[in-house]
């Protein structure tokens, strides 16, 4: 069979890529949201774990500082103990004093020695003697005494 020489048809055109204008942005945003939502627990968990380690570290530091505070309190107690004061007084050449002389004077005595504040009653708040303005207003009202 003889070949028939006939012209070829017009060549098929290769389709061009879809232009940007046709991107479905809604889909992209949705994918992004879904992706972020999926990542959020991971980020949150990671952050919580880091914070947890930091918290543990701080708790350790707190315990250590509390221990050191108690150690310092104990040191203060030891250094202010009577046997230690007596020993130190002897070291610097002090000797027990003679019997005291009691003299009656009209002046108030010296202030008492200061003591560890944490073990003493808190300071009593005392007013300055002036009356507040709203209380003075009450005086104008006919209230019973």
């Amino acid at each position, binding site marked *: 069979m003889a070949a028939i020489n006939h012209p070829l048809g017009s060549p098929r055109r290769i389709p061009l890529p879809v232009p940007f204008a046709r991107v479905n942005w809604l889909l992209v945003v949705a994918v992004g949201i879904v992706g972020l939502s999926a990542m959020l627990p991971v980020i949150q968990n990671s952050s*919580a*774990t880091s*914070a*947890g*380690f930091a*918290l*543990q570290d701080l708790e350790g530091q707190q*315990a*250590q500082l*509390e*221990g*050191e505070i*108690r*150690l310092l*309190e*104990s040191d203060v*107690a*030891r250094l*202010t*103990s*009577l*046997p230690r004061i007596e020993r130190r007084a002897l070291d610097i050449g002090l000797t027990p004093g003679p*019997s*005291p002389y*009691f003299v*009656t004077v009209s002046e108030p*005595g010296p202030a008492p020695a200061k*003591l*560890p504040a*944490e*073990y*003493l*009653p*808190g300071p009593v708040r005392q007013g300055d003697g002036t009356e507040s303005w709203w209380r003075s207003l009450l005086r104008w009202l006919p209230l019973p005494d």
Partner: protein
Amino acid sequence: MTQQRVRGTRRVWLPAFFFGAFAVVIFGRLVQVQLIEHDIYAARAETERVGAETLNPPRGAILDRNGHVLATSVNTWDVYVNSRAWRDGADAESASQALAGLLQTDYDTGNIAAEQIRETVQQSKAVDVLVVRDIDYEVGLQVISAGIPGVILLSNTERVNPEGDTGASVLGFIGLDKSGLAGIEAQYEDVLRGKPGKAIYERDTTGEPIPFGHYIAMDPVRGQDLVLTIDRYLQGLVEERLAEAMEQHQARGGAIIVMNPKTGEILALATSPGLKYSTLDLSDASQMELLRNRAVTDLYEPGSVMKVITAAAAIDRGVVRPDTTYVDTGVVNVEGTILNNWRYESYGLQTMTGVLQHSINTGAVFMVDLLGAEVFHEYLEAFGFGKPTGIDLNGESGGIVRRPNDPDWSPVDLATQAFGQSISVTPMQMITAVAAVINGGELVRPHFVKAYVDSDGTRREVEPGVERRVISEEASATLRQMLTDVIGPASRLHPGKPDYYTAGGKSGTANVAVWNGYDDTQIASFVGFAPADDPEILVLVKLDENQDFETGTQAAAPVFAQLADEILQYLSIPPDDPVYVSGGR
């Protein structure tokens, strides 16, 4: 075209049957696990996943009346070694050397201590072996930072007493489980210990807590601090004076109590033999008897100090006055039993004040005869004899009082009780009764705790507890004067007279009671107060079995006199003796 139906064959049905049966079994098991036994498995899972830890709060401190620390707790570490980590000999040696070097248990090379540590670990069957207890906090931190393989440190606390042995017999001590075993530490265990908390945590597969899976289910409540009535300076002073007096008079033991007679506050209490932290060895059984505070647990016959109580009852009841007279012949016949004065002395015509001044036994019998057994015993009971005073120290004894309704009671018992025999009391009972005589007539409860301090610093004062009125204020004032007359003015040169202050008091010397009689040893005592008009302190001095056989006036009264001067000066109470007030000396 028709489709031919495939008929099942054995090759199809048999596997299908087995797979089906397997699925049914699995499903059944799931129903059992997830539904029927859900609670059991949920609890098991919870146990695996969740751990709990007890949070021990710091033990409260014990302070003296001025806020100075007498006992407090500091953090320490217990060192454990994981024996599995030390299986390899070379590893164990290097780790033990490193540990011993940090612990400094051997001052030269550390070799011996390291060997001891290795031996301890090898000989133990436990996985985690305790090798050292209560190492210093700072040393522990060094050990932790060194990261020695197999070494584990667990936090602990240690009780420290900055004042050393001062007040040890009052304070007591705590055991390895950190609970009080004696003294104030035991008496106030609930207050000092606080309330343990609880921490819940989720753990990973290795058992380690998961960060953020940890929460405090219950916060620990720190133990309260106790502020005692004890003054550390006075406590040290009376302990020193007691030791000196015991040495001077070769006494086997003794006690000194200093009390505020108006409030019942114990300012100082020394006993000997007594507990000392510096020599305490709990493995020595003979030291167990040091754990009791003899001033509240041990009984003695008070002797002539009891005449104060007899006179107080007689004056209050109105059967005698201070100037009531009688004739002392030196002896008194009670139902055929002859009772003598001390050293068979006789004083002739005497007042009731004279009875106390000369400590006349027949005079005490005279007063108790006028009172009668029933009334006298009503007073004894009112003064608190025969039952504990209620002081806040463990192991208090109530004393022994023979009563008229006892089966072997005899009138001789009544007569001898009037001058302090046939009756056994504790030193604390005796000083509490005398406090009621001189403080206006009210029996106050002796106590050691002045205040509680909460962890937030809130302080709650302990109010003095008045048990009851025993004698009238007038009778109390009369007795104060009579007892002041016992010591008398400076010209009387009574050994119990303080140099700078007016004072009153009464001595007692009694043989030590043994089964069915008395032995040759004696107890010399003195109870005194100062200043005479408005007593700030009441002091009981008691010396047991003094080998020089000096009487209460000779041996114990001078101790009171010296202490009264020293204590009142320390308390900034100006001298009230007329000689000094007028500036004559």
